[in-house]
């Protein structure tokens, strides 16, 4: 065992003068890339397979319909994917513990009903109404969590019961067959309005700069403390890639993308995108950089070991369900924002299964202990791409069912096949 600093995979421990810095760094990056290749072959895939699946889907649909890759349709995709991404992000917390929440979809519908009623019947402003919806969501999660944690009823059954019971809420509040208008400027605007182009550029730049500052700061700190670290060049490369993606997308979405550009102007990033990104960043931070997140993984990996380490397993379970239902509320509000209304059936269809599927395709395990917020977003994009692409093709219903299933399987296979070695690496 060596002293940690001069890590086996390199590190800039031999700065042999300015002149050779470049070649030294290049060598280190090559080493790092080789190690990455090894990691891939060893089965540690990250979200790469799901991204691959997404690329395959894009290629297929782009070849089948020329409108698929238009910026207008890409913006559609972002808006359509938002609510499932958010729902799946919430579910990741529950799945991390090896639990499931079948009620998340209808909980979202119920919470959106509350939000809508608060605005319509009580005239609350959008943020107060949203808060009310999320609070109700959290309370639902609390109830589920208490039942699962303290009574020990399997979460499948508890949430199946809530799945049924929560359908009563909008049915009672809205009335069978009715619907509530969801036309608040701000909330409805999330789906149909866009961030002003200048503001979009500013936010994009801030994100890139913040990421760069954080990466570099962390790098220097680890170098100073003589801990294992990536070569500086790689850090810079990562920053460059992120900058290219973020700024590229911003540029793309800042153009007028209306199908009838002369009459109407649609440009800028759809408002839902920053919402989803903010949630993604926040929950990624919670999962990876806080004690709470660490404990979630521990409970999911080995609940008994976590208990022995003094972690309050019951409290973690409750927290996971609260987060999940709270996120479901946000997802429900986004869905309502998309269709401009809430109706009794909202969230009661296959949304939940799709969201769980999204998390799983993204790389989250149903057995607990493995999963990330980004999984939900990548998986959600995969799931949303299927109806988006199929919708352009305008086929008979049964063909849609067939193809949706087939394409889902295809995307999952790309994922599974590239992930396989994880298990063939054994134990």
């Amino acid at each position, binding site marked *: *065992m060596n*002293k*940690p600093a001069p*890590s*086996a995979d390199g590190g800039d421990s031999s700065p042999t003068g300015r002149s050779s810095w470049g070649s030294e760094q290049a060598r280190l990056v090559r080493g790092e890339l080789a190690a990455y290749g090894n990691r891939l072959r060893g089965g540690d895939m990250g979200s790469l397979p799901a991204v691959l699946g997404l690329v395959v889907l894009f290629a297929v649909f782009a070849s089948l319909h020329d409108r698929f890759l238009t910026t207008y349709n890409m913006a559609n995709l972002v808006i359509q994917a938002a609510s499932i991404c958010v729902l799946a992000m919430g579910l990741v917390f529950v799945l991390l513990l090896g639990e499931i929440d079948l009620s998340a979809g209808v909980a979202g519908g119920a919470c959106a009903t509350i939000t809508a009623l608060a605005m319509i019947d009580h005239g609350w402003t959008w943020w107060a109404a949203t808060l009310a919806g999320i609070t109700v969501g959290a309370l639902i999660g609390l109830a589920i969590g208490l039942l699962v944690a303290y009574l020990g009823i399997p979460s499948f059954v508890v949430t199946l019961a809530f799945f049924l019971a929560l359908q009563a809420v909008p049915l009672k509040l809205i009335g069978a067959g009715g619907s509530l208008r969801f036309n608040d400027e701000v909330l409805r605007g999330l789906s149909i309005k866009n961030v002003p182009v200048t503001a979009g550029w500013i936010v994009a730049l801030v994100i890139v700069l913040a990421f760069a500052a954080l990466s570099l700061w962390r790098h220097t*700190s*680890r170098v100073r*403390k003589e*801990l*294992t670290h990536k070569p500086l060049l790689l850090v810079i490369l990562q920053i460059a890639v992120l900058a290219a993606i973020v700024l590229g997308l911003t540029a793309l979405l800042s153009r007028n993308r209306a199908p009838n550009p002369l009459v109407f102007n649609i440009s800028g990033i759809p408002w839902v995108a920053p919402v989803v990104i903010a949630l993604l960043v926040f929950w990624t931070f919670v999962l990876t*950089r*806080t*004690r709470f997140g*660490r*404990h979630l*993984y*521990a409970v*999911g*990996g*080995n609940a*008994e*070991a*976590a*208990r*022995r*380490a*003094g*972690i*309050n397993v019951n409290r973690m379970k409750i927290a996971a369900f609260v987060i999940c239902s709270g996120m479901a509320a946000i997802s429900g509000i986004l869905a309502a924002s998309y269709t401009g209304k809430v109706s009794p059936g909202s969230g009661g269809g296959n949304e939940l299964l799709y969201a769980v599927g999204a998390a799983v395709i993204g790389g989250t395990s149903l057995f607990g*202990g*493995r999963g990330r917020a980004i999984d939900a977003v990548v998986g959600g994009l995969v799931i949303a791409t299927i109806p988006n692409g199929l919708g352009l093709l305008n086929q008979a219903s049964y063909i849609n069912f067939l193809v949706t299933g087939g394409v889902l399987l295809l995307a999952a296979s790309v994922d599974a096949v590239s992930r396989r070695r994880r298990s063939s690496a054994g*134990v």
Partner: protein
Amino acid sequence: MTAEPGAPLLELRKVNKSFGVVHVLHDVDFAVYPGQVTALVGDNGAGKSTLVKVIAGIYGRDSGDYHFEGAPVAVHGPRDVSALGVEIVYQDLALCDNLDIVDNMFLGREKRKGIVLDDETMETMAWETLTSLSVRTVKSVRQSVASLSGGQRQTVAIAKAVLWNSKVVLLDEPTAALGVAQTRQVLDLVRRLADRGLGVVLISHNMNDVFEVADRITALYLGRVAADVPAKDLTHNQVVELITAGRSGDLGIRDVAAATI
């Protein structure tokens, strides 16, 4: 029995524990003294690990008292016990396979800066502790514990327990999977901990190790305490007899034949 070396740090009195029909612990008295290594010995299935888990708060007691530093304490779970300053290495290790070595070592007591985890400090501390335990083949402390060899896992579990300033340390067969050098380090560590004034409990089936470090020996036989005597008053053979037969000379359980599980 001989005079007690001061007041016990941790003491169980007349503890009973059953799993359904199986009565595993019968009226067990057990004490841990500061500055002493108490060896807990017994045959396979005698109830040693069960006793450890009762002390740890993982299993409840069916009856009996739990005293710490002379006062009775209410123990409802592992958190209460670790709050008392008791650290335990379990025989079944109990590591989270999905986490890496550092995460496992600091589980439940992560270092933080503000609300953010201080991974750098934890990583450094983990290296130091592992190195002190003679681990040579661990490549990175960021390796997930699922990929570790049996002995490496055991070392991580031990490192996890000795990382903290505690008053009592219980080690359930800590050296079972360890190599020669690592075993040496752990035995030395056990001695050092006791010399620092901690109460240490060592469970082992290896009599050489027991006699090398133990001050007292408590022998369990079918869930009953067969003897609880200073190590120097016992011979190797006597201990083996206590373990396998429950009696040795005038030591041990009076009515061995009546003892059943």
